[in-house]
């Protein structure tokens, strides 16, 4: 009985701690790629606002959803303990995620403002560029 209990404790401890290892290069890369994908989507949505070619409810809801995803990614990256060789990239990725969340929040606040839309579109493009550069430095391949 004691053996079974000990085994259960070890299994539980292993299961509980196995997800808490260092953030690997691959995991970080996947996180940054998803940030790049979010920025690309944000650019398309902002383009619709800039051209006055969308519906404000659509922009607001999409910006809220995607902004939430960017925030979640930022928290996930910030909470993870990076392996030493990717610490600098991890910090840069958290910053990119934060900027992205801010831009989505801007879209959510001004879903019908063409001027804001054009600015956000431009900044989304820049943030996507930063994310792609990070992917490049993590993989050594062009994003």
């Amino acid at each position, binding site marked *: 009985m004691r053996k079974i209990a000990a085994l259960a404790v070890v299994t539980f401890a292993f299961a509980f701690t196995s997800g808490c290892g260092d953030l690997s290069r691959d995991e970080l890369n*996947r996180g940054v*790629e*998803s940030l*790049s*994908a979010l920025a*690309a*989507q944000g*650019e*398309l*949505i902002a*383009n*619709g606002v800039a*051209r*006055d*070619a*969308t*519906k404000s*409810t*659509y922009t*607001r*809801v*999409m910006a809220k*959803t*995607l902004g939430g995803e960017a925030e979640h990614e930022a928290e996930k990256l910030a909470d993870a303990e990076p392996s030493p060789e990717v610490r600098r990239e991890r910090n840069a990725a958290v910053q990119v995620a934060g900027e992205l969340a801010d831009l989505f929040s801007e879209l959510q606040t001004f879903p019908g403002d063409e001027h804001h839309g054009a600015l956000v579109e431009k900044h989304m493009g820049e943030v*996507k560029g930063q994310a792609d550069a990070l992917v490049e430095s993590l993989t050594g391949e062009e*994003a």
Partner: protein
Amino acid sequence: MKSVLKIALGIIAALGGFLDIGDIVFTTQAGALYRYDLLWAVVLGTVGIAVYAEMCGRVAAVTGRPVFDVIRMRMGFGLGLVSLLASTFVNVLTVAAELGGLAIILQLLFDAEFSLFVVLAAIGLVVVVALLPFGGIERVFGCCGLMMLVFLATAIHQGPDWGEVAHGFVPSFSDSKLYLYFVVGVFAAALMPYEVHFYSSGAVEEGWDESNLRENRLNATVGYALGGILACTLIVVSGYLFHPIGVDPTDLGTAALPAQGAFGETGLLLALGGIMFCVGGAAIDSSFAASYNLAQFLGWEWGRYRGPRKAPRFTASWLLFLFLAMLIVLSGINPVEITEYSVVLAVVALPLTYFPILMIAGDRSFMGKHANGKISKALGWIYFAVIIILSITAIPLLLMTNGGGG
């Protein structure tokens, strides 16, 4: 003239009703990830559903028996019960996915709490079913689903390299698990079991007999073929717009972006409207399918045409399944995730649905001169082999790719 109109309406209903949230999610993601490379999988799935829908429409018209009657008769109580449990589980998940999809679109159009729209969507479906006759429901959702044609116009407007698009219709394989996962997903989304459950029960609801066999053939072939073309355009517009810039369309609303890019707000509204009627129609179809199966298996009175008084248990079970689906969506699980799971789990249940249809449709003692001919028989068995292979690989691929997350 009247019969031509009836056939045209049937085709429109099949066309508009072909696409559901599973098709929309998987084709849009497939286009974003693999550009036009998975177009062949849509064709494979479309021919499969046309072959089997034609068979079960024919069985229903000739014998007056819908799919689950046939399953119980052919497989006996034990295996029939397994089939009932599996298909009910998948059908309820599908209803939840469609209901969640409907609520997402309503939220994108009117911007209020998601949970409010889930409840409103469920109530709206009950009202529609209470007010409209069976044929009316099919035609309203089918015709309004034609707003999805905006994606065909978008594809033409985008002007992709059509040679490259044509190349996508040539089957290609890769050792990438994610690619194989999307092959399974795109194929299975076209062959969801609820589609044949609903189709054959619908044939009985509308009182089909042998005189409707031509209509059945046209609905199944032309209607589903046109629906397949719409599914292909979703891959094309997504592949053209999303693939080069690396967009990962994990939200249902993203699917409407290509139409907005091409035609501005009008395009966006048509796309959202089309998706809304497709998923709304599919929510009714899949919830009806779950109740049809239960009632047919247990020998209850069933059918929309009988009304709640003559078929109370059928009506109550329909309301119960819709309520269960509503609870699943309200639990906070993302409807797109529910969709992916329902489609992949449906693959596992496919053999239990399609095998009895194949056997009965080919049984001369039962179907007489309307039994499967050489072509139907060959296609039926080829597709059954494909279904078996996919049902074995679906769950491992789901786990290995982390639900398509890579």
